């Protein structure tokens, strides 16, 4: 018998040149922050300092919003066809430099290169291509011609899919004629700043895209700025609520894409081996840092033992480690803060009485890591069954009948996504009809397409991104 170990197969990081210090991108130029303050951005897989980015203050936000307002003068006078051409150009430039973006994304955020290369970057380009196609067809898309862009849009995005969330935000906003001030997440600002170079290369009129970095305080300055016409936020439900509060009473549009605690329902008549794969992909994709992750596994009691056995075996083959190794399945947890949160929720799950299974893989010494984790013997009342863990932790619940499955699935404050596994078509439709979730995947999970609207029910937010619905998030009725 042999123990065949794969040799390291590292994607070279020579292709990226990370500056020692970055500036904000305002009015088509890289400008040093008036705050004169910076924050560090590190690589979560090594804890190495990668660079410093501005901690923008009120003056910085003022000049970014002012520039977006000026940009609007130019952008709104272009023909839809001209705007479309800029977006196509951006899409092509991203494709040309996709390896560079992918490596930088994995360095700064910790996700495996396999995912940044094969998922994030193709999706980023696809979103720009898709919305480029809409830009000159807006007048034909609705019965009314009285839909107009909001104007200046503030966009605040999370750290789990840094560049993809940027694409989800910027592409539809520009296609509908808005200009933007975008703030990337504190821990993952680098690909957004590289994207600023793409805007420059594409010759995008100055002020149309402005990128400012910072922390939560910077985000709040954008939200509270008097000249912002709309806020689009993706992140935690907690922050989403704060934003909604501060916008109450103001004539500012808002879309929120927040947390989730998706049920992945596996019926006894599912194709079991493929369901195991789908469940693994549902929770361990991107270290579980996915708002629509299938974090609650709902198993029909009759297949529980067999399924869990297969799942545990499959989990053992997950390769955790260096995000730049092409054979890595699970990379680093994005930050120390997130690792602490995951750890504390998992400890709570054990204290509550959940049965813990973790894979035996070796973890690197430096950096932030968490073993793929499965909880069985969990009651719906445990916090690991209710709170969004946002990490590689799967919680198993059981059910007896389809009615009970739906009841448990909907017994959550969230409603972003869900999965249904059965080979019986009628059961898929019956179940999907009854789930309060923005996306329901059948016999698959975590599938995305720019043409498919994404968004939540209940505390998972409102508004849709992607598809024709996604355009409406950046348009409002006007007389």
């Amino acid at each position, binding site marked *: 018998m042999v123990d065949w170990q794969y040799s*390291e*197969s590292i994607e070279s990081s020579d292709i990226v040149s990370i500056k020692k210090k970055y500036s904000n991108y305002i009015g088509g130029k890289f400008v040093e922050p008036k705050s004169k303050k910076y924050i560090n951005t590190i690589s979560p897989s090594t804890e190495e300092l990668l660079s410093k980015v501005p901690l923008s203050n009120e003056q910085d936000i003022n000049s970014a919003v002012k520039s977006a307002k000026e940009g609007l003068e130019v952008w709104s006078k272009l023909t839809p066809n001209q705007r479309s051409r800029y977006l196509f150009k951006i899409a092509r430039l991203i494709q040309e430099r996709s390896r560079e973006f992918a490596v930088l994304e994995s360095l700064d955020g910790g996700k495996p290169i396999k995912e940044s290369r094969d998922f994030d970057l193709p999706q980023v380009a696809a979103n720009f291509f898709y919305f480029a196609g809409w830009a000159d067809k807006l007048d034909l898309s609705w019965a009314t011609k009285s839909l107009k862009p909001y104007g200046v849009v503030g966009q605040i995005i999370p750290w789990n899919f840094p560049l993809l969330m940027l694409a989800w935000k910027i592409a539809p906003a520009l296609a509908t004629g808005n200009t933007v001030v975008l703030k990337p997440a504190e821990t993952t600002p680098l690909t957004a700043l590289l994207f600023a170079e793409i805007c420059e290369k594409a010759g995008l009129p100055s002020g149309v895209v402005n990128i400012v970095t910072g922390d939560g305080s910077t985000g709040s300055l954008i939200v509270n700025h008097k000249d912002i016409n709309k806020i689009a936020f993706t992140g935690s439900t907690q922050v989403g609520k704060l934003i909604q509060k501060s916008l109450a009473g103001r004539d500012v549009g808002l879309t929120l894409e927040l947390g989730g605690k998706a049920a992945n329902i596996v019926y006894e008549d599912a194709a079991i081996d493929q*369901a195991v794969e789908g469940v693994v992909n549902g929770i361990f994709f991107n270290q579980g840092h996915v708002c629509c992750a299938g974090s609650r596994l709902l198993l029909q009691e009759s297949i529980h033992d067999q399924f869990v056995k297969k799942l545990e075996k499959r989990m053992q083959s997950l390769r955790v480690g260096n995000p730049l190794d092409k054979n890595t399945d699970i990379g680093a947890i994005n930050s120390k803060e997130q690792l602490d949160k995951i750890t504390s929720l998992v400890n709570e799950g054990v204290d509550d009485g959940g049965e813990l299974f973790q894979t035996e893989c070796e973890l690197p010494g430096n950096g932030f890591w968490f073993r793929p984790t499965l909880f069985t013997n969990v009651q719906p009342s445990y916090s690991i069954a209710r709170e969004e863990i946002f990490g590689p932790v799967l919680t198993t619940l059981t059910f007896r009948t389809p009615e009970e499955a739906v009841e448990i699935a909907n017994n959550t404050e969230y409603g972003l996504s869900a999965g249904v596994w059965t080979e019986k078509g009628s059961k898929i439709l019956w179940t999907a009809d009854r789930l309060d979730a923005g996306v329901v995947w059948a016999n*698959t999970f975590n599938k995305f397409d720019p043409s498919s609207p994404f968004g939540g029910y209940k505390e998972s937010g409102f508004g849709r991104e992607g598809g024709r619905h996604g355009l409406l998030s950046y348009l409002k009725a006007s007389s």
Partner: protein
Amino acid sequence: MKNMKTSDVLMQWSNVLEMVYESRIDSVGLNERVNSLATRSIKKDSKLEALKMIVTMCDLTTLEGEDTEGKVSQMVAKAIKPNPLDTSVPSVAAVCVYPSLVSVAKEKVQNSNVKVAAVSSYFPSGQVPMESKLLDTKYAIDSGADEIDIVINRKAFLEGDYRKVYDEIVALKEVCQDVHLKTILEVGDLKTYENIRKASLISLAAGSDFIKTSTGKLSIGSSRQACYVMLKSVLDFESMTGIKAGIKVAGGIRDAKDAIRYLVMINEEMGSDWLNPELFRFGASSLLDDVLKQIKKLQTGAYQAGYYFPRG
């Protein structure tokens, strides 16, 4: 490998039927998994190790009407010493020939570790009465075959007569006794993943030591997808009976890169127990030459011309 006696009842027919009718496979999900395993990047030492493993797992095969004693002798010599200029290259697992050439092959392998496998039961079609299949198999065994590769009765299978498929394999296994039995499903005839799974489970329950993808005589030979269906069946069979059965992939595996992808799949889905010629084989005629070339490339950095490698 645990020796199975046909007198041991592995599974009641009703259990076999139950498994067979519960063969549910989602082809989209299956393809996705198989394709994602194909993105593994196998380099440097791990590649060299894989290439040498592949050599030890090869069943060097010639199954033509034009086969002669001379042709088989050439092949056996190559099977024993695939690369005479590099002694670090191991022998292959077996040579695979028609029954009439078993005695020649057996004489030539002599003291080496190379086994002699014979295709029987009227390979490749199997369209003869059972008596003939038994005679064919008995002849190969009497001539000294260490391993027997039979074909399942696809006529019966596609007509839905699963019991007949099962009974025939049971009868052939009885002739084989301790001779290693590999059962060829001919996945190119079965077409659907469900059919491949059904045929796998029937063959395993009937006492096959190995299940094998293809005869190599159809334009559709082995595929990684078919192998995946089979390996899942083997694992499910193991969890029910405790018996570890083997898999042989054959037909259309021409280069080292493809063969490594099969190994990755076996490694990650089945584990290192199966990375072993006792439980995993490649049936191939042209694969070996590419593997030898790739070994040389890893050692020297350059591809050598074909004429540096002996003819088989």
